[in-house]
């Protein structure tokens, strides 16, 4: 019988007649060292681990402390032996506990007693007679090993250590380890290596609680073909993403740095978390950091934020006072278009519902052992995180729109004009809840809904049309004899001092003009629809044309071209894009004429384009 006695010089069996020196493991936790770390080290390397690997049966004192019996470190060690994977088959070894207590007494006085009632665990008292009886039973083959790890894992319960007593702190480390365990090996990547190092250094992996959860979760075999995680996020290239997570130093920085590196994006991390900072100090420091990075030349428009960022948040009753929420409100107050992904370990749906009220649209729940326990779920949890980040990046153009609108408003166009119509235009367009705000608010509400986008386009053209109608911008006279045709036209120079004339009515249905419309069909137009102005030719000097040939009626389109190109110097290709959007506006957004192919839709980038044109013309 290859046996091993584990004790703390607190037994009568440590006599060489019974256990040779090589059959003893003196358990002696180093001064000032965590007991789980000590046990993990003993079981995974060094002579004591070799002794266990060479044994067929273990005798362990219930108490392994000299003076402090109730710690029952022998039971804790027994759990570790069952759950430490590196022991291989020896995890099933029969364990004989030695103590004066009964199973019932230990059950009543040890917080995690379930191991006592599993197969392969025996209990004897400090008695040579009982020891000899046990040896005899072993030799008769009556002492059994654990034969079914699944049943064992399902029948035990290991409570989290008190420093991990919140669901939050467990999920933070658990999810990181789980995601990483499913990544393809990528040793050439510097960030991958750093992530592996960081994870192997995590103390949590050495705790009994982690080993227990890991044993439960890995009952489902890992299938590389089915479960491997590709650590890339689509369509976030070139983006800078801000990360605010108090667990950042526990491997989350390396995690994000790795997946962003693989996706050609950058993680900008707040690394100023200090344990002794008060909540108020933390919030103040975070605000300074946020202001800095959202006002860079290439600003950060997407943040990944955890909700509970300070220890006090765990005792906070009012959700709105949680640090993460205060930070979200601060960011949204600076720029409501900035996108936020709340990545939290909270499994409370109402927390996420409340986040909606603060303008958050994207959420990712960090995987936790309670909510996820198989590989497919881990994969889906990771993919969900990636989709949320990708969507937030997609919508981050809203931050830019907000900045542009703010910039446009700051131009104070017509501020010195006394003209009532100009003033009305200013109020209607740039005022609070004016047309520009309406565009932004609609996009914020839902920028993927076609009806919303069409409505934004209508408002944008309403602004353009109103602008072109202003007498301080230009004047378009009608040729009364020729219906709707232009008689003459000029626009004011941008300083308002000079007129620029580019249409002059001439005799016999002729007009001197600086440009002529070109007819054709847009690619998105139905083939059987009428031709429409799709472009315009600009002449070097006034040219005499038939009013019928030039097609220069007093339409909004002609006014827009005239003002944008000849007054505001908008590049020709941009004016042509406006022409295309104008056609869409008139044939889809305003009236469904059927002239546009049904599969053609405008998108948020088109609205952004018009807002950019506004920044040029209203400057």
């Amino acid at each position, binding site marked *: 019988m290859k046996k091993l006695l584990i004790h703390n010089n607190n037994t*009568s069996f440590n006599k060489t007649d019974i256990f040779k020196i090589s059959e003893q493991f003196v358990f002696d936790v180093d001064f000032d060292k965590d007991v789980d770390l000590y046990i993990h080290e003993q079981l995974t390397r060094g002579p004591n681990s070799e002794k266990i690997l060479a044994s067929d049966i273990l005798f362990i004192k219930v*108490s392994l402390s000299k003076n402090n019996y109730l*710690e029952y470190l022998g039971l804790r060690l027994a759990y570790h032996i069952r759950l430490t994977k590196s022991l291989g088959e020896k995890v099933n070894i029969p364990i004989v506990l030695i103590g004066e207590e009964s199973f019932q007494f230990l059950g009543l006085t040890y917080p995690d007693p379930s191991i006592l009632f599993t197969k392969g665990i025996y209990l004897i*008292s*400090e008695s040579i007679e009982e020891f000899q009886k046990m040896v005899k039973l072993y030799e008769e083959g009556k002492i059994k090993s654990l034969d079914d790890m699944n049943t064992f894992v399902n029948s035990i319960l290991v409570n989290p250590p008190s*420093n991990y007593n919140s669901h939050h702190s467990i999920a933070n480390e658990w999810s990181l380890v789980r995601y990483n365990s499913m990544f393809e090996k990528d040793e050439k990547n510097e960030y991958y290596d750093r992530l592996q190092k960081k994870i192997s250094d995590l103390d949590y992996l050495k705790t009994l*609680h982690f080993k227990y959860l890991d044993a439960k979760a890995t009952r489902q075999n890992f299938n590389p073909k089915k479960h491997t995680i590709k650590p890339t996020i689509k369509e976030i290239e070139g983006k800078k993403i801000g990360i605010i997570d108090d667990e950042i130093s526990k491997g989350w920085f390396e995690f994000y740095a790795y997946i962003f590196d693989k996706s050609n994006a950058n993680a900008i991390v707040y690394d100023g978390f200090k*344990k002794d900072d*008060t909540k108020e100090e933390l919030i103040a420091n975070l605000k300074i950091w946020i202001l800095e990075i959202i006002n860079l030349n290439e600003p950060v428009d997407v943040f990944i934020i955890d909700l509970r960022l300070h220890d*006090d948040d765990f005792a906070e009753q009012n959700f709105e006072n949680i640090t993460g929420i205060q930070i979200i409100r601060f960011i949204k107050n600076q720029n409501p278009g900035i996108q936020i992904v709340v990545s939290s370990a909270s499994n409370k749906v109402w927390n996420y519902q409340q986040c909606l009220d603060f303008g958050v649209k994207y959420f990712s729940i960090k995987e936790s052992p309670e909510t996820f326990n198989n590989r497919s779920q881990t994969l889906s949890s990771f993919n969900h995180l990636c989709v949320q980040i990708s969507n937030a990046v997609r919508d981050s153009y809203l931050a830019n729109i907000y900045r542009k609108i703010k910039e446009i408003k700051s131009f104070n166009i017509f501020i010195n004009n006394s003209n009532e119509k100009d003033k009305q235009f200013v109020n209607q367009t740039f005022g609070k809840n004016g047309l520009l705000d309406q565009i932004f608010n609609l996009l914020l509400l839902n920028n993927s809904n076609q009806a919303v986008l069409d409505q934004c386009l209508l408002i944008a053209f309403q602004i353009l049309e109103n602008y072109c109608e202003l007498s301080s911008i230009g004047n378009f006279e009608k040729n009364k004899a020729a219906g709707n045709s232009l008689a003459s036209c000029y626009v004011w120079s941008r300083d308002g001092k000079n007129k620029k004339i580019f249409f002059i009515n001439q005799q016999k249905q002729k007009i001197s003009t600086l440009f002529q419309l070109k007819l054709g069909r847009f690619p998105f137009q139905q083939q059987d629809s009428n031709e429409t102005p799709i472009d315009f030719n600009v002449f070097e000097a006034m040219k005499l044309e038939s009013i019928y040939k030039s097609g220069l009626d007093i339409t909004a389109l002609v006014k827009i071209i005239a003002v944008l190109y000849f007054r505001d110097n908008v590049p020709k290709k941009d004016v042509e894009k406006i022409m295309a959007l104008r056609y869409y506006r008139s044939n889809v957004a305003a009236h469904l004429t059927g002239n546009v192919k049904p599969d053609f839709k405008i998108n948020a980038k088109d609205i952004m384009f018009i807002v950019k044109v506004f920044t040029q013309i209203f400057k």
Partner: protein
Amino acid sequence: MKIAIIEDRIGRLEQFTKSTNFDLKKSKPVSIITGLEFDTLINSLRSNDTSMLDPYECIVSHRSALSNEARDILKDYCRKNKKPLVFFSGGITSSVLKDEEFPFLHINSKEFYSENLKLFIEVCEEHSIVNLLLLQFGKKWKLSLLLNLRNIIAVAMNKEIMKMNNIEIEDIELIKRVRDLQINSAIKADLIHEKTKNIFSGDDYGSVSFEQLKSLKTIIDNLVSELV
């Protein structure tokens, strides 16, 4: 009886006051070393000057508030002066008490800032006793001592039996006198019973027989059952 609590994260202490209604700052035996006083202590420890700790009978410190060097100085100081030392830390999974060279408890911060701390301080104040088991196990502290003593007795009795069975046992390993039992004075009174009173009637050098050990073990068995 004075206890020094060295704490750099004062918010935690305030949270404790809120949750237990026990204001540590107003507690007579307790001195909180924080803020400027904390900085002064750290500077003193750097130059190996521990005199600031002399007025205290027990030192309790947030483990990570101190550097490795400062921790070693503190441990040496407590070892030399046999002063109980407590390190509390958020990174400890299970508390461990060592009581060989001096009483030294390593405990998780959440377990430290609990009702047990209140009990520990109250006992310090009323009885002038530093009982670290109170911090670790609260009201169950006596149980731990009794179980420990029972194990000592069981080991001793088995050694006697083993000796009778010709297993080599040195006389020095056997319990011959009351003092060999290392009975903690806090539980002594509970152990005095009709069958055991003779053991405690003399001084600690009085002899103890196998039968007396057996009786003592039975008494402990009964006491233990009552406590659970």
